């Protein structure tokens, strides 16, 4: 099986507090991992480290360059641009001229020309998820994607993810709810890796 991501002995910290230690896993093409864990464990930090937005304290992350697309708690949507303009911007950035499939995959066709600032919470979330489809990246990193979505939209989301997996993509998902992604999906409890060790700054050892 073709591995798109492998993580070895990963150790992550935030503000001088080690959050998780010795996380090890591999992710194959066509596979999804769902991470669970209590609030404040460090799941968001973990996803940011993997996507390369934050440095790890120690450990190795092997992945091809530019393989991640990331959806955060924050929507990253410009209220004064329309839905289509918002997506078109990312399409330009990712050199992908087709925003229509992304729009229709999340039922945004009717909202195309509405200003994003006037969307409801769930509609905004869908817009934010539609960016994943535009990015054309193999590994989707989703931080609580189903927040604010109604049941129909959650099903839509599940379909989109499954389709992505079938096309050889992969996904890392953090959620407190329930997502049904079929057999190619495993659930990992991150709570096991919890750490309480404190460090202070990454050069802290020098001061001891």
């Amino acid at each position, binding site marked *: 099986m073709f591995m798109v991501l492998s993580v070895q002995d990963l150790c992550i910290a935030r503000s001088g507090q080690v959050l998780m230690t010795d996380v090890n896993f591999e992710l194959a093409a066509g596979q999804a991992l769902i991470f669970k864990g209590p609030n404040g464990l460090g799941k968001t930090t973990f996803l940011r480290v993997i996507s390369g*937005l934050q*440095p790890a304290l120690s450990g190795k992350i092997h992945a091809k360059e*530019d393989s991640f697309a990331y959806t955060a708690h924050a929507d*990253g949507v*410009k209220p*004064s*641009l329309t839905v289509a*303009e918002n997506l078109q911007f990312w399409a330009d*950035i990712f*050199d992908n001229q087709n925003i229509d499939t992304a729009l229709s995959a999340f039922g945004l066709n009717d909202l195309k020309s509405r200003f994003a600032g006037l969307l409801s919470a769930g509609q905004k979330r869908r817009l934010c998820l539609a960016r994943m489809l535009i990015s054309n990246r193999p590994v989707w990193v989703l931080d609580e994607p189903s927040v604010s979505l109604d049941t129909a939209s959650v099903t839509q989301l599940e379909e989109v993810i499954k389709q992505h997996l079938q096309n050889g993509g992969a996904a890392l998902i953090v959620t407190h709810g329930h997502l049904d992604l079929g057999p190619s999906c495993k659930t990992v409890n991150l709570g096991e890796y919890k750490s309480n060790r404190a460090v202070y700054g990454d050069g802290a050892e020098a001061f001891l």
Partner: protein
Amino acid sequence: MRAVLLRDLRLAMRVGGGFGLAIMFFLIVAVLVALGVGPDVALLSDISSGILWVIALLACLLSLDRIFSLDYEDGTLDHLVIAPLPLESVVLAKATAHWLTTGLPLGLVSPLVGLMLGLPAEGYLWLVLSLALGTPALSVIGTFGAALTLGLKRGGLLLSVLILPLYVPTLIFGAEVARRGSIGIELQTPLWMLLGLSFGVVAILPFASAAVLRINLR
């Protein structure tokens, strides 16, 4: 990079009101200076080129805050970091958008403001030239400051205090070119200094800004 530039311009137009408002802003500040200082034309004409330069600085300041902070708060900046384009070019695009919405309109309206403040006739060419050469540097330096104070809400004043000292050389040479131009004395030295400064800043500082951004996003 084109996409970032176009988007920033569109956002500025749509919400900030774009060019028209920027031009109005300069006019209004000029009126305020006149109202504050008094209607004495001789006095106003002595300070006109210097004041125009100070207005340019302040207009930059007023808008710097928003270069990165909106994108930072709503998470767009994270996505831009992951996106397949170097952060340096994002920085440059944003500085360009900032210049197009502050420096450029200021340059365009400066003759009118000069007129109102009684700038001597010989001064116009040099005033416009000095602004055209100097304001790009102001935008790039400002972008650097905005990157430094990223994530500090209400960073407005802190940003000003950090940035204003960095503006000093540009201001001195720029205002000197305009002042000497208006009284018609030799201005080669400050002009070349201004030119060199501007080129240097535009060529080098975006790298520093991108580095600072990376540190701040960590």
